[in-house]
C-alpha cells in the first residue's frame, strides 16, 4: 500500500461554528489515521482567504499531498490555488462553499446556505402572519451571510411579516447580546427573532431574558450547536427549533476522500447536505454532547 497524504485546509476557529468545524476535522483525522495505516492527514487552518491560499501552496509544494480537502474561506479567491493543487495531481474535495469552476473538483460536499434561509423562512411563516414583527441579526458581511439573508427575505415575501430592522452581529454572542438589547429598547413589539446562527441566538436569549420579554417572542438560530439542540430536546419555548448546518460536514468530506484511496473504485460527484429543521421530535439524532460546538 502506498502512503497517501491528504491535506485538509479550513478556516481557523474564530467563532463557534468554525470551532465545531475544527473539532470535527480533528476527530476525523484521528479516526481515519487510526483506521488506515497508509493515510496521513495534514490539517491546516487559515485566518483569511489569502492565508488559505498560502496554506494550499504549502500543502502542494512542501507536503506534496495526494488529495486536498478544502472548505474555502471564500469561493472566488480560492479557485486559483485549488486549480494549482489539481494541476499538481491532487484529488480535490471541496466542502460547503462551491467553487465557481466546478471542473476543478472531484468531489463536492455541499452545505446549503440558501436552503438554510428558506427553511427558516418557512418556519417563520408557520408561526407568524400578516402584521407580525421580526428582527434579524446577521453574521459577518460575507457571501454566506448574504445568501442566507437573501433566501430568507425571498422566503417570507408576501407573508405580511414585517422585518423591523437587520444588523450585523458578527456570529458572536457579545454582539448578539448588545444588538438585541438595542432592538429591545427600540421596538416595543417584537414577535420573532431570526438570528441565523446559534452563537448569536445565545446572546439574544440573554438580552431577551434581561428585558423580561421571553413570553413575547421566539428565536431561531442556525447550525446545530449542542446547547441549542439540547434546549429543543427539553422543549425550550424561546428557541423552539433550529436549522441545521452541521460542521460535521468536514468529516463527511474527509471520509469520502479517504474512501477514494481505500475503496476499489474512484469516488466522484456531489454530496448535498440539506438544512433540515430540528424540532423536539428529531433533535436527539443531531445531538453531539462531546463536540465543543
Amino acid at each position, binding site marked *: 500500500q502506498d502512503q497517501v497524504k491528504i491535506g485538509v485546509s479550513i478556516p481557523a*476557529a474564530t467563532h463557534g461554528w468554525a*470551532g465545531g468545524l475544527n473539532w470535527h476535522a480533528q476527530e476525523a483525522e484521528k479516526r481515519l489515521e487510526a483506521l488506515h495505516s497508509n493515510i496521513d492527514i495534514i490539517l491546516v487552518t487559515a485566518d483569511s482567504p489569502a492565508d488559505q491560499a498560502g496554506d494550499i501552496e504549502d500543502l502542494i509544494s512542501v507536503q506534496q499531498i495526494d488529495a486536498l480537502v478544502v472548505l474555502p474561506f471564500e469561493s472566488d479567491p480560492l479557485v486559483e490555488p485549488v486549480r494549482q493543487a489539481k494541476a499538481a495531481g491532487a484529488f480535490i474535495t471541496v466542502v460547503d462553499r462551491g467553487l465557481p469552476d466546478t471542473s476543478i473538483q472531484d468531489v463536492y460536499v455541499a452545505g446549503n446556505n440558501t436552503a438554510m434561509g428558506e427553511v427558516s423562512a418557512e418556519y417563520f411563516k408557520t408561526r407568524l402572519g400578516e402584521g407580525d414583527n421580526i428582527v434579524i441579526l446577521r453574521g459577518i458581511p460575507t457571501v454566506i451571510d448574504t445568501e442566507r439573508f437573501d433566501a430568507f427575505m425571498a422566503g417570507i415575501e408576501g407573508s405580511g411579516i414585517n422585518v423591523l430592522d437587520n*444588523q450585523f452581529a458578527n456570529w458572536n*454572542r457579545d454582539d448578539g447580546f*448588545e444588538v438585541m438589547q438595542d432592538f429591545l429598547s427600540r421596538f416595543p413589539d417584537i414577535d420573532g427573532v431570526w438570528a441565523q446562527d446559534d*452563537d448569536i441566538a445565545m446572546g439574544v436569549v440573554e438580552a431577551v431574558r434581561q428585558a423580561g420579554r421571553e413570553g413575547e417572542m421566539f428565536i431561531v438560530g442556525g447550525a446545530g450547536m449542542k446547547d441549542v439542540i439540547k434546549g429543543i430536546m427539553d422543549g425550550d419555548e424561546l428557541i423552539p427549533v433550529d436549522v441545521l448546518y452541521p460542521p460535521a460536514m468536514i468529516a463527511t468530506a474527509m471520509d469520502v476522500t479517504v474512501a477514494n484511496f481505500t475503496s476499489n473504485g474512484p469516488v466522484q460527484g456531489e454530496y448535498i447536505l440539506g438544512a433540515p429543521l430540528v424540532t423536539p421530535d428529531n433533535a436527539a439524532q443531531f445531538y453531539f454532547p462531546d463536540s*465543543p460546538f
Partner: protein
Amino acid sequence: MSVSVPETTSRPARAFGIDLKTAGPLLALVLLVILGYSLNPAFLNEGNITNLLTRSAFIGIIAVGGTFVITAGGIDLSVGSMAAFIAGMMIIVMNWAVGSMGASVWTVLLGVGCSVILGIGAGFINGFLTTKAKIEAFIVTLGTMGIYRSLITYFADGGTLSLNNAAREIYRPVYYDSFLRIPYPVWVFIIVAIIGWVVMNRTAFGRYCMAIGSNEQVARYSAIKVDRVRTVTYILQGLCVSLATIIYVPRLGSASSATGVLWELEAIAAVIIGGTMLKGGYGRIGGTVIGALILTAIGNILNLTDIISNYLNGAVQGVIIVAAVYLQRGSLRAGRRAKKAE
C-alpha cells in the same frame, strides 16, 4: 537680594475651573447624545442608558488600566485576548469546583480569586518582558496577545466554554442586578474610575507614571524606580482586565476564541479619545471614562437607527471617532486662544 519679587504660585492652566482637555471629549459626548436622541428618542430611555453604561463598563475598566500603561509610555495590545483567556480559566475552574464540591457562593469566589491572580500574573509577565528583557511593549504584548488567544481556543477545543448552570444562577446577579437602580457593573466601573483618578492624580505613583512617560532619563535621575513603576502599570492593567472579566462572565456565562476580539483597539482608542497622549507623559482618567462612553454610544446609536446601510457602520464609527478627537483638539485650541485674548 533680587530686586524683582518673584511670583510664587503655579497653578495649572484652567479656564473657569474646567480643564479643557477633558471638556473636549465631554463636548463630543454631549453632541453624540443629542444626535442619538434626535435619531431616536428611545436613546434616552432609562433602559437604554442603563444598557449603554453597563456595556461601556468592560471597555471602560480596561481603559482605566490602559491609561496608566500609556501614560508611562507603554502600550498593551494583549488585553482583549487576556480577557478571553481569564474568562475561560474562570469557567474551567468554577466548573471543576462545582463538580467536586457543588455550586455555592464559594465557587464564584474561587473563580473571582483565580481571575485576579491570573490578571496580576499576566500583567506581571508583560511588565517583566518589557522592562527586564528590554523588548518593546508593542512586540511583547503582540506576542502575549497571540498566546492568550491561542490558549483560550485550545482550552475551549475551538468551541465555547460554558459555565455550569448552577454556578451561573449564583453568579448571574453580578451582571444583571442593580443597586440604587444602577447595575453592579456600572458601580464597579465608577469605583475603578474613581480609584484610578485618585491614583493617577493624587499619589506619587501617578506622578511617577507621567514622569517616566514624559522623559525616562529624568525619571531615572530623579530616583524613580523606572522598571518597577512600569511593571506595576502593566499589573494594574492586568488587574483591570481581571475586574472587567469578573463582571463579563456572568453576562453570557461563556467564553470562546471570539471573546474580547478587538477590545485592545477599543480600549486604546478610549484612552486617546479621552485626551491621554499615546507618546506618554500625560494621563487623563476622566477623559478615558468619557472616551469609553463615546465609543459605546456610537455603536448604540447605530443600532437604534437604520438610515444608513449596515455595511457602512464601520465608516460612520470611523468618521465619528476622528471628528470627536478633532472637536477635542479644536476646542482646546479655541480655549487657548480665548485665554490668550483675555
